[in-house]
């Protein structure tokens, strides 16, 4: 009885926080100075690159200028030029924007798949869950990088959209597995059973009962996935199987470093992009980790 009461109390405390989930997430970020600085940095860089990119002419930046090949940084070219005489600084801005955009797009698309998959598998359980999990297991063991590279190189009419679709097709599994576990946990609670006896249709139970209760975990997972996806895009572009050179991204700038001459002597082309990728990924992770703590009452600082 004693134990039971304590459990109950613990539950009350937990749930007394949960309605204002978003506020807790926000509070945790503000308490964590590093996360706050990271968030500010992210907001600034995002507004900056999206803002500036409006005034930059992409076709002008990617135009080859044979008289300005491999210029070191100067007043005219703040970060020098690449082998086509193209301004690295301009490419960096447009590249950051493109990298962020595709990162966000892929994260959202994988997120939607993972949410639907997780909710359906977790809510229905049983045979449905079993079949879905077998499918997921299969996708899990695929050598992600190689399959994506092969698809990128054989898909007809390759475009940014098909690139993000290919990435999405092989990137939803981790999140789906997590959401399914949470949805399963949640679906066993009485309020879900109650909703069934009250005649609420399954779809509605999934999205109006279960979903709001795993919402904060979804946000955390998506934040951390965003960092990973930006890293993956730059990695693929670095190998030459992501963005084409005509659409600069942080990864295409990095790919110039595959030329040993550029790597050794012309740091200004690839190093800024490398630093930027690192900073962006670290900052997103900082925010994500703070959010993660917020969803776990034991670790919360605020």
């Amino acid at each position, binding site marked *: 009885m004693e134990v039971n009461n304590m459990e109950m109390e613990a539950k009350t405390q937990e*749930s*007394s926080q949960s*309605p204002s989930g978003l506020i807790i997430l926000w509070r945790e970020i503000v308490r964590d100075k590093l996360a706050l600085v990271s968030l500010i940095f992210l907001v600034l860089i995002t507004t900056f690159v999206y803002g500036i990119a409006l005034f930059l002419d992409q076709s002008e930046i990617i135009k080859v200028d044979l008289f300005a090949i491999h210029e070191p940084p100067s007043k005219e070219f703040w970060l020098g030029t690449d082998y086509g005489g193209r301004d690295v600084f301009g490419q960096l801005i447009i590249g950051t924007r493109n990298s962020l955009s595709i990162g966000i797009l892929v994260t959202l698309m994988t997120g939607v798949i993972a949410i639907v998959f997780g909710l359906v598998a977790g809510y229905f359980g049983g045979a449905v869950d079993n079949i879905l999990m077998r499918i997921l297991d299969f996708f899990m063991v695929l050598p992600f990088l190689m399959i994506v590279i092969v698809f990128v190189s054989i898909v007809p009419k390759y475009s940014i959209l098909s690139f993000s679709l290919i990435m999405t097709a092989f990137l939803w599994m981790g999140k789906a597995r997590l959401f399914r576990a949470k949805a399963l946990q949640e679906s066993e609670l*009485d*309020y879900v*059973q*109650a909703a069934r006896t*009250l005649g609420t249709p399954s779809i509605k139970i999934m999205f109006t009962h279960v979903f709001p*209760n795993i919402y904060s975990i979804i946000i955390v997972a998506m934040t951390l996935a965003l960092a990973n996806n930006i890293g993956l895009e730059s990695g693929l572009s670095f190998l030459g199987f992501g963005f084409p050179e005509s659409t600069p991204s942080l990864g295409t700038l990095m790919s110039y470093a595959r030329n040993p001459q550029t790597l050794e002597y012309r740091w200004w082309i690839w190093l800024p992009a490398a630093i930027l990728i690192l900073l962006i990924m670290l900052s997103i992770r900082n925010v994500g980790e703070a959010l993660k703590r917020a969803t776990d009452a034991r670790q919360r600082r605020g």
Partner: protein
Amino acid sequence: MAFLEIKDLKVHFPIKGGIFGRTVDHIKAVDGVSLAVEKGMTYGLVGESGSGKTTTGRAVLGLNKVTDGKIIYNGRDITSLRGSKLDYRKDIQMIFQDPYSSLNPKKRVLDIVSEPLKNYEKLSRQEIKKRVQELLELVGLSPESIVKYPHQFSGGQRQRIGVARAIALKPKIIIADEPVSALDVSVQAQVLNFMQDIQSELDLTYIFISHDLGVIKHMCDHIGIMYRGRYVEEGTTEAIFNDPQHIYTKRLVAAIPDINPRNREKQLHFRQEVETEYEQSYNDYFDEDGLAFQLQTISDKHSVALPERS
């Protein structure tokens, strides 16, 4: 014809095993239970945890799949209705054991109580709000509570919210699964009495599931005692408490504490007597698997599970 009738209900859960995950055996959670409830009455299901009482209740609601047997509500077989034929659900509602997990923590009281209304009745927002407020008043909560979240209430109040939600559709039958066992003893009586008030007010039929014989005695007209998925004894409350026939029932009844301290010595003695009888005659009351026998009618108000020979 009884209002709700369960005929030889069986609910078996498969045990998966082996290399291919085939079904190797079954857990017989409910194994041949029959009961009949009259309108406006309270039927108590008693048993230790794992005896199948909750599974029986959930099977009536369609939350557990029925392996075999029939559930007849108001003359209609509802055992395996699906989809649009689930309209009977409106008439049979449930009160859950745990008032903490049975209310969605992310929803306001208004949304929680109005959920069944939105599912079955086309009402405007204003009408819904009015109905919810009426319901809350009926269960003894202030109408202002509608904007609050479940965590802002005590356990007893939460259980009242659960009741308000269950009666929103004016059901005929309510299955109450240990509705007070998660509550402090001081609040239990309050909630029980309130449930009785509502019962007479709305002419409800209860199936009351509990392991607490004191609560059952207080609430029920009719009792079925379950042990490992089967009935061991069934009858009116009077018959069960005053004239228990099965050794398992005797033991349960003997275990009810007596408030009068002067009877302590007598009680202890009585209990020891029952215990000895239990140990000696166990094999007479249970078959070789330790399960109860078929019910034998001993009077029109009383049946006991005894072996054929007696």
